[in-house]
């Protein structure tokens, strides 16, 4: 997070935008999946990594088991949201779970896009349970010299 702050010092870009959202998400998850308390608010699901090249920003998130129809990626203004759901499969009465380590439930994450992100040119691909969102960069605004006149 420190790195993100350095790059866009004026706001917490790429961070979930506020505590309320975080808390709601936590309650939402707890309600849906009952006893899975271990996923604390500090650890968001899914984890994301964000990269930048000269032409675009890349957001990478592992979402194993999800098909494109289980995922939603939306951009509104300077907010990018990803949402998804995975349910543990139903087993029959004569079957028993011996181990449940995989995280299941509904999740929702929102990020604020950096200034140069072009919200009109966002694409997303899902490959073997890995979501990649690509956000094109707007051309760098030219520096305009402002002429200063003497009063």
């Amino acid at each position, binding site marked *: 997070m420190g790195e993100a702050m350095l790059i866009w010092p004026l706001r917490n870009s790429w961070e979930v935008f506020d505590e309320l959202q975080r808390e709601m998400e936590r309650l939402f998850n707890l309600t849906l999946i009952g006893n899975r308390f271990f996923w604390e608010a500090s650890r968001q699901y899914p984890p994301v990594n964000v990269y930048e*090249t000269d032409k675009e920003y890349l957001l*990478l998130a592992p979402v194993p088991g999800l*098909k494109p129809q289980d995922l939603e990626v939306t951009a509104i203004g300077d907010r990018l949201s990803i949402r998804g759901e995975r349910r543990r499969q139903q087993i029959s009465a004569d079957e028993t779970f011996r181990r449940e*380590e995989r995280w299941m439930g509904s999740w929702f994450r929102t990020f604020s896009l950096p200034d140069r992100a072009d919200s009109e040119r966002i694409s997303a691909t899902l490959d073997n*349970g890995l979501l990649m969102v690509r956000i094109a960069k707007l051309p760098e605004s030219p520096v305009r010299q402002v002429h200063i006149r003497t009063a």
Partner: protein
Amino acid sequence: MSQRNDHLVQSLVSQERPRSQGSEENVFTPPLDIYETVNGLVLEADLPGVSGENLRVCVQGNVLEIYGKVNWPIPADARPLYEEMRLGSFFRSFILPEEVDADAITAEFQHGVLRLMLPKVSRAKPRRIEVKIAQAEPPSAS
């Protein structure tokens, strides 16, 4: 019965250990679910980003190993801005319980999830013993 089964699963998962493949590759233990059916165990492991050709499941003796290499789709000139996860590959190994028929293990891989079917050898399956109804007594003459 349930004690026995817990032991079975315990022995299946107790041998996990991360192993370093090569020198600097990060290797992570993938989370998994195991459930038991009448026919055996079903194991499902999350291996996001692994492609079918980079996934290796092998059984040697009574050891089952899962190794999945991830080719992270990140351009060479990309610079990280924000990171919540470290990138690496997945490895997990198990000692198979005797109840599992190692020759009959099958695997499926879809959407980054590996599903292994570990059937029990037939003698370990619960078997229903048919109870023959003894010939009814001939109705006694009254």
